[in-house]
């Protein structure tokens, strides 16, 4: 514990230094200053990603992440400009394209990106950004018709029944390889969870496995007819992950503000309200700390 304590003190010292010394002469104005000056916080969210960020009938970007972006901007006293971005091959690419470098096709970066994993190991590998403001814990769950759910033995159940997954996801790969591939042939692929749930509603498959928020949103009004819960996933390192925000390294003042604003949103139950608006049950993130790589390359975490 001593080490962590030391880190905390170190980080706090750095933070207080940053707070006390405003930009020196040759330093550019901080990102936060620029945001306040322009009055706009530019937030990157994924396009076509219900219930987090998608376009409504009128073409506006709506969803949990979009609402959180607007709420954060409001807390900062500015308006939100939401940039719906396409997902590249990996999160590292997305961070490069949208947070610290910009895509090679141009367009620059956003001030903030939402829906980024909040994970110490991941932060260590991505030291060009600061990860802040964890706001949700996503979890792999299975939805099955009520009555089956209580005593679900995945191996037994899925060796008989078809389970729908979204292509190229953790759930997909896990189920394809779990139990030495014994249930591989029962896995049915869909391009998104919405389509998988629709197939389940039509009775074409018995279950859908995937992230809780996406499944709950897709179930919609029929949520009561299905049991949604986590299953045992032996062999898998994790079946849940925290989501937070990322800002470019160096924009510490902005990171602090976003962290504060997000904490406030959580404490005011604004987050659970936003999730409820999209028929998703809010899950508290497991950690609520600032994860960043300090100049010495160490990970600091503080409450």
């Amino acid at each position, binding site marked *: 514990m001593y080490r962590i304590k030391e880190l905390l003190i170190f980080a706090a010292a750095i933070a207080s230094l940053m707070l006390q010394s405003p930009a020196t002469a040759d330093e550019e104005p901080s990102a936060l200053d620029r945001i306040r000056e322009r009055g706009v916080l530019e937030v990157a969210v994924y396009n076509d990603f219900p219930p987090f960020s998608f*376009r409504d009938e009128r073409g506006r970007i709506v969803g949990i992440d979009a609402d959180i972006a607007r709420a954060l901007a409001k807390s900062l006293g500015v308006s939100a400009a939401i940039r719906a971005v396409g997902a590249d091959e990996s999160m590292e690419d997305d961070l490069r394209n949208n947070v610290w470098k910009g895509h090679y096709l*141009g367009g620059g970066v956003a001030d903030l990106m939402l829906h980024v994993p909040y994970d110490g190991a991941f932060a260590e590998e991505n030291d060009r950004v600061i990860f802040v403001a964890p706001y949700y814990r996503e979890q792999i769950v299975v939805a099955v018709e009520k009555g089956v759910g209580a005593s679900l033995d995945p191996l037994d159940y899925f060796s008989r029944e078809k389970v729908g997954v979204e292509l190229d996801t953790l759930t997909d790969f896990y189920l394809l390889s779990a139990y030495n591939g014994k249930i591989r042939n029962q896995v049915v692929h869909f391009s998104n969870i919405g389509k998988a749930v629709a197939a389940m509603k039509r009775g074409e498959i018995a279950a859908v496995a995937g992230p809780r928020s996406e499944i709950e949103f897709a179930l919609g009004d029929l949520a009561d007819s299905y049991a949604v819960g986590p299953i045992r996933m032996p062999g898998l390192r994790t079946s849940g992950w925290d989501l937070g925000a990322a800002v470019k390294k160096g924009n510490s003042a902005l990171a602090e503000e976003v962290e504060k604003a997000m904490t406030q949103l959580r404490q005011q139950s604004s987050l659970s309200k936003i999730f409820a608006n999209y028929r998703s049950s809010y899950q508290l993130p497991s950690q609520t700390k600032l994860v960043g790589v300090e100049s010495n390359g160490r990970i600091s975490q503080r409450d």
Partner: protein
Amino acid sequence: MKRLIHHLPLVLTLSCTSNALYAEQGQADPLDSTMWQDMRRTLLGDAPVVFDDRIRVLAPGDAEDSMNVPVLVDASALGEVTRLLVFAELNPIHKVLEMEPLKAKPLVGFRIKVQQATPIRAAALTPDGMWHVAGRIVDAAGGGCTVPSLGSGNSDWASRMGEVIGRLWSGKGSTRLRLRIMHPMDTGLVPGIPAFHIDQLDFLDASGERLSRLFLYEPVAENPVLTLDLPQRDSVTVLGADNNGNPIEAIISKEIREAEL
């Protein structure tokens, strides 16, 4: 609100000063435009030209929105017109629109982008090979041609491109067609955004007969709103494409409601 329609011809007549015919040769350009001789040479060629107030060119004297300056050109007082050409002399791209009226009245309504104060001119070719020219000056703040279209700023423009809303109105002896087509109409003058505009639109009836034809150029405003007076028909098919070959296809018909709705 019948009176609106009744008053319209009166109002329009008042806006035209007289019916006098100026012979272009020896007659000064009524708009006193420095570009006129150039325009004449490059756009109208060697054909004889007269200034003719019988062509009505309606447009605001001062453009409130230089990206959307409304214009109506009506050359129907000339009788038969084989081609109608609209150009904005001080725009970086002069040609705005061309019409082959065919069965339609030589009348077209649209909106344009203007870069600065400019004469907006309409030239109508009559079967005797004579160009009749009229126009008016629109004062403008500018920037219309070198500002990116709003559509370009919206990452979703591609998904609505080519979407049409439109309606037919029957009048005496003719059917008025008004339609709006979603299209960015990029001029190509904004760095990094190539010219991208609707090229040609054919207006056909249900039997496939071509009623009229329009050629659009870069200065036509984003999401063009077009107005034509066609022969009486219950439905009009619009077929066209932009300069990238993206098709524009729609049937606009009279019945507002149908059992299946």
